[in-house]
């Protein structure tokens, strides 16, 4: 089986499409195949091939992300804490990244792995769009990502991405990379239309290949399509809240409030999730982002509500 990126490398060597910077600058070389591997410096190393250098530092892990489909599109929500061992490495990480105007990806697992693989995925989707003059479907994107991650199965790469997007009808060639005048921080109260689309395909399409899509891809090789996913150390708590109230017929405000509540409860109980909640909503018109909300205030409001219930 030809590894995807080796194929890409051969192609790129012939044509100088990368302005001289080879692809292997972007994708790390695998630990095992190279015989002159620079990891095992101990001259009398045992026969076992998977000797690794022990890392003296922890990497960032731990999160709560979720996504679900309802009648108004797809909601993607996540907390914003990146922890490394017992320290909060960064309290304001972006765990939800737009790939193009109709696809948003939530990341979970190791921070660096997710960031770099999202970047590689964005690059590949953009190249596909330029070469084939149409948007790759969400299922195709998930398959592409899964195949790119396959050579790294069994290594320490830890990536669990949920692709949340809206497939447009075949023939629609417009899937702009996010335009700069995006209403990127809007309230759910304002009607946010984000990309320069012509809104002809407004009605929820009856054909199965278009419409909202939610696909989970992870570095172990799993690729699952579904209606609701929650990933990360806080996911059990989020599932509990979502399973109770999630219905297809939710309104947009109810869905947003449900997602927010699920992340809030998860951050309350899981030590590795916390700080703020990010929320994205994807529809046929593209994605819109709700203003990032600090959960500290929500916790105080919740405490007050509880004391009111007890007293009143």
């Amino acid at each position, binding site marked *: 089986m030809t590894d995807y990126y080796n194929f890409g490398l051969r192609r790129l060597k012939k044509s100088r499409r990368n*302005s*001289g910077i080879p692809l*292997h*600058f*972007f*994708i*790390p*070389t*695998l*630990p095992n195949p190279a015989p002159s591997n*620079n*990891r095992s*410096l*101990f001259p009398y190393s045992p026969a076992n091939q998977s000797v*690794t*250098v*022990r*890392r*003296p*530092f*922890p*990497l*960032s892990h731990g999160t709560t992300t979720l996504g679900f489909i309802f009648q108004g599109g797809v909601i993607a929500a996540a907390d914003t804490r*990146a922890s*490394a*061992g*017992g*320290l909060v*490495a*960064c309290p*304001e*990480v*972006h765990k939800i990244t737009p790939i193009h105007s109709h696809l948003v990806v939530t990341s979970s697992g*190791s*921070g*660096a*792995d*997710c*960031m*770099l693989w999202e*970047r590689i995925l964005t690059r590949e989707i953009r190249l596909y769009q330029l070469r084939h003059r149409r948007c790759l479907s969400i299922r195709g994107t998930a398959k592409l990502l899964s195949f790119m991650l396959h050579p790294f199965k069994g*290594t*320490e*790469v830890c990536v669990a991405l949920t692709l949340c997007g809206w497939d447009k009808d075949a023939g629609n060639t417009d899937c702009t990379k996010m335009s700069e005048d995006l209403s990127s921080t809007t309230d759910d109260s304002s009607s946010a239309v984000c990309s320069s689309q012509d809104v002809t395909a407004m009605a929820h399409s009856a054909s199965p290949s278009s419409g909202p899509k939610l696909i989970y891809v992870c570095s172990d090789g799993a690729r699952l399509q579904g209606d609701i996913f929650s990933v990360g150390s806080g996911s059990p708590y989020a599932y509990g809240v979502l399973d109770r109230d999630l219905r297809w017929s939710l309104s947009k405000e109810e869905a947003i409030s449900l997602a927010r509540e699920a992340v809030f409860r998860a951050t309350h109980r899981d030590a590795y999730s916390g700080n703020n909640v990010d929320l994205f909503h994807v529809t046929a018109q593209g994605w819109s982002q709700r203003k990032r909300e600090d959960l500290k205030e929500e916790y105080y409001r919740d405490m007050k509500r509880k004391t009111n219930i007890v007293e009143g």
Partner: protein
Amino acid sequence: MISAHGFGDPGKMKEYHYTGPVEHRFSPYAFNGGTVLAVAGEDFAIVASDTRLSEGYSIHSRDSPKCYKLTDTTVIGCSGFHGDCLTLTKIIDARLKMYKHSNNKSMTSGAIAAMLSTILYGRRFFPYYVYNIIGGLDEHGKGAVYSFDPVGSYQRDTYKAGGSASAMLQPLLDNQIGFKNMEGVQHVPLTRDKAVQLVKDVFISAAERDVYTGDALRVCVITKEGINEQTIPLRKD
């Protein structure tokens, strides 16, 4: 970014009692200590580092600053394993030159940050043991700080501390620059002189409590006029 001496062999003080037979493996990493700090203001950026180079119980050098000038508007601070810091800065300089020759312009701070992320991730399975922080001015002339983890995850911030005393300094910066967890305080934007004074005070505190930080402080202030460096003495014990 957490100090490494809780994890693994490098930098860990040796146990001086008998624990039973222990297999000693050669570790390609060492922990050389040091703290780096960067703050971004409205039209300036500050990158500061101490100048102590240590290993275990010894000090190798009292004059080894960890700020490296990359372009006229960007300075990088690297702490961790000194060997990897040196190699990494050499690679960054080479890539900067390559970019300059093929694109006929200098790299912007954001571009350097993105490039460093891919350089670090290219060594995902045998990482550079370096905590990087880039400070500089972006294309609009505003201050920018980009902080990295050893494998390439990065983020644009307003302020960040990295290295051995980072866990001590970061909460102080959160409070003084980010006004976190303070009630009823006016959020005044940071002026350059106040920022430099804050950085000095913060490093004096770090030198008191962290053994790997001390000797001297090198502060680089980046404005559109250029990069201004000052050296301030710290505790030598």
